């Protein structure tokens, strides 16, 4: 054939490069528009600072441990919450996915609990855990558990029964088959659940910190910084925290894509 696989790989790499360039151009254009709008000055500069001011301030913030330590604290709480909910929700989801009666019994309960907004439970968490990181962690756990649980169940439901039967016919025990066959083929769905959870966990963590108002985490920092009257630090923090969230998401997607290349329909997902 005329086109070699190396040729296709090269073409793909070139398309990827073009995509990156275009993405950077898009962001540059947005920054330029921001800069121009802010320079016209129809809004007070401390309310709507120029892009260069904000970026400069963001760079300065990076050097301040008072800020970076709070970011790390928020990230720590968020990741801890994510890990806890993964450890809880995946085995639970696998079990619910394997045992239809358990699934049927719990599905209405899950559907009823899932939409309860995490933030509504803030006061309860404060009562139980005080104004501490544990409050943040517990609310991240609440938020993250549902998408991971539901996608785990969904992943188990889409395990090919033939694959399981094949495994059993090779003499694998019930639990070994579950662990060796069912879990790997449900893994892409579980990963989707975790990705969805990441998307909302950071927002919940920051929001909790703002409500508990203990001056800890990014949320606490924002509350204090915005009390001064100038919004410039808020903009700068938003830029940096957004970058952290973006990288987190990007990293996870990369890992996901690498691990589950074999999975045909990883774009089809339930949430």
């Amino acid at each position: 054939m005329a086109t070699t696989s190396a040729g296709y790989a090269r073409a793909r790499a070139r398309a990827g490069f073009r995509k990156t360039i275009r993405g950077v151009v898009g962001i540059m254009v947005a920054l330029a528009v921001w800069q121009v709008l802010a320079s016209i000055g129809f809004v007070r500069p401390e309310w709507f600072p120029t892009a260069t001011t904000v970026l400069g301030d963001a760079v300065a913030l990076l050097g301040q441990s008072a800020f970076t330590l709070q970011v790390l604290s928020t990230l720590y709480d968020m990741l801890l919450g994510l890990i806890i909910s993964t450890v809880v929700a995946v085995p639970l989801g696998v079990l619910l996915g394997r045992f239809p009666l358990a699934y049927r019994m719990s599905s209405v309960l899950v559907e009823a609990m899932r939409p309860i907004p995490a933030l509504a439970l803030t006061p309860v968490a404060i009562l139980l855990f005080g104004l501490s990181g544990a409050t943040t962690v517990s609310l991240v756990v609440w938020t993250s558990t549902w998408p991971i649980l539901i996608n785990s169940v969904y992943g188990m439901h889409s395990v090919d029964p033939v694959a399981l039967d094949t495994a059993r016919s090779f003499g694998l025990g019930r639990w070994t088959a579950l662990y060796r066959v069912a879990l790997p083929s449900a893994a892409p769905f579980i990963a989707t659940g975790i990705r969805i959870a990441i998307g909302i966990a950071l927002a919940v963590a920051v929001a909790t910190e703002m409500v508990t108002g203990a001056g800890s985490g990014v949320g606490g920092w924002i509350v204090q910084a915005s009390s001064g009257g100038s919004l410039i630090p808020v903009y700068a923090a938003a830029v940096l925290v957004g970058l952290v969230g973006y990288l987190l998401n990007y990293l996870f997607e990369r890992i996901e894509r690498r691990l589950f290349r074999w999975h045909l329909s990883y774009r089809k997902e339930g949430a």
Partner: protein
Amino acid sequence: MNAAASKPQVLSVQDLVYAYRTADGEIEAISDLSFAVHEGEFVSIVGPSGSGKTTLMKIVAGLLQATKGSVRILGKPLTGRVPDGVALVFQDYSRSLFPWMTVQRNVEFPLSHRRASRADVAQRSRESLSAVGLVDFATRYPWELSGGMQQRVAIARALAFRPRLLLMDEPFASVDAQTRADLEDLVADVHQQFGTTILFVTHDIDESVYLSDRVLVLSAHPARLLLDREVPLSRPRDQVATRELHDFVRLRAEIAGLILRPGTEKTASSPQDTSPGGR
């Protein structure tokens, strides 16, 4: 010699060249192809996988634009627009049907924006659904049907459109043998009953001989015409008896020789013989 040759040309392809433009330069898929299809004719194109058959169909349907050469439909050159009166049945039936529409909606969808009355549209869809034996399934969704039935829906949709030229791109490549035989006879019936002009692409030599009035054989990539031959078999044909006829067996062997052992093409049946320019 050719009874159909006196009829007007529905499709004429002249000196067609097509090259895909990719990031790595050009990939020639079709190199210098000429042929014609006349009204009421059933013409098969047979060629190995990857020879450029789908590319040719997409050009004729107006989905791709020729790099060089001309394509005329009913005498009118293709000019970047999708030609009127051409329907295409894709190989990939499960994807070409719209899963959010019922079978009937799928069939009527291409009609409803033409200035046809509701009654006329309903009449036409009913007629073509009954031609493929699916009237009872009009209110079903495509995914409720088996693969062979889905392909029949795609055929019914094309028929209801009443195309002047029906293009079929390996329509039966992914159905089982029995369904395939049924569908072949269905298409042959439709051709007889409606007098539709059909250009039928396949990589199956038997199928091309069994179905058509004329067979065009394409070379491996990039596509050139190796043979343009009348099929000397009477209609109606029979899945068993026709395939045992001497003429069938001989033509099949000749085509197989061309495709499987390239470089043995005979001058006696050179493409110029029936090329549109030669008339």
